[in-house]
């Protein structure tokens, strides 16, 4: 079944509650904190730690208020394909970041160290574009802008990579909390 505007709008509404923003904010904070304490290896484990929590949190907090829905098989297939592409891009980005880090460690003349410091925020910011493609939530472009600005600022002032991630994470987390609060308030009469 071809997608219709109604189906697209209903699918977009699935992501309006703010839970995804909350999770993204927590992930950024975890990665930033790991960089802050120079435990870089713990940054990437935020995703495998948070992904299994998504379904239980959604079921407990969101579904009683937003309701339960199963989208059409064609929509689910498109979503799965897009998600796989995004995950592959994410993995490729991570590999690129690690390669650049290794290059800088071996030879600082290859890539300026201050540029590498801003790279995590820039690359994670680009991830926001993919989230917009997946969820049709334009606000993730604003998060992308915040991360890219944070990354550029990091390069400009020669700061470490942790601060922009922590600051951006706090902004995204705060936005998620605000959206969730509004969602809970608007859903008072609907909750089962």
């Amino acid at each position: 079944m071809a997608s219709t505007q109604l189906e697209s709008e209903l699918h977009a509404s699935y992501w309006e509650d703010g839970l995804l923003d909350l999770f993204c904010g927590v992930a950024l904070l975890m990665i930033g904190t790991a960089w802050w304490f120079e435990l870089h290896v713990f940054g990437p484990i935020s995703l495998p730690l948070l992904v299994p929590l998504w379904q239980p949190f959604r079921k407990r907090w969101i579904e009683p208020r937003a309701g339960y829905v199963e989208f059409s098989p064609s929509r689910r297939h498109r979503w799965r394909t897009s998600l796989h592409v995004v995950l592959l891009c994410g993995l490729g980005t991570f590999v690129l970041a690690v390669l650049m880090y290794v290059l800088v460690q071996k030879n600082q003349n290859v890539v300026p160290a201050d540029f590498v410091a801003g790279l995590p925020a820039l690359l994670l910011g680009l991830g926001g574009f993919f989230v917009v493609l997946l969820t049709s939530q334009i606000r993730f472009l604003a998060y992308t802008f915040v991360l890219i600005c944070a990354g550029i600022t990091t390069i400009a002032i020669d700061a470490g990579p942790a601060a922009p991630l922590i600051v951006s994470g706090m902004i995204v987390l705060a936005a998620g909390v605000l959206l969730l609060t509004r969602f809970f308030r608007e859903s008072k009469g609907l909750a089962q």
Partner: protein
Amino acid sequence: MTSSEDVLHIPMVDGLIHEPARLRLLAFLCVLDRADFVFLLRHSGMSRGNMSVQMTRLSDADLVAVEKTFVDNRPRTTYSITKKGRQALTEYKHTMTAILDSFPD
């Protein structure tokens, strides 16, 4: 002024589907695999009582299938459009298109 022959060429609209609230609910269900009461309530903007009445009429006419289950000890009622419901909606779309096409610009 139209002649009586012209009146005969206007197809009959399915009154069960034509009602705005029921049409809205069928429109949602025809683009989804299934949805529960709360999801439809949230998006339809209807009251609980009204939506319950409309869904009962649609399921009595076999246009919508109802499934009642328990999830984590909480009741969940989900709805999906039946094959008959899809056919009826397709016919309704053709009928309304024919009627609207017959309007002068």
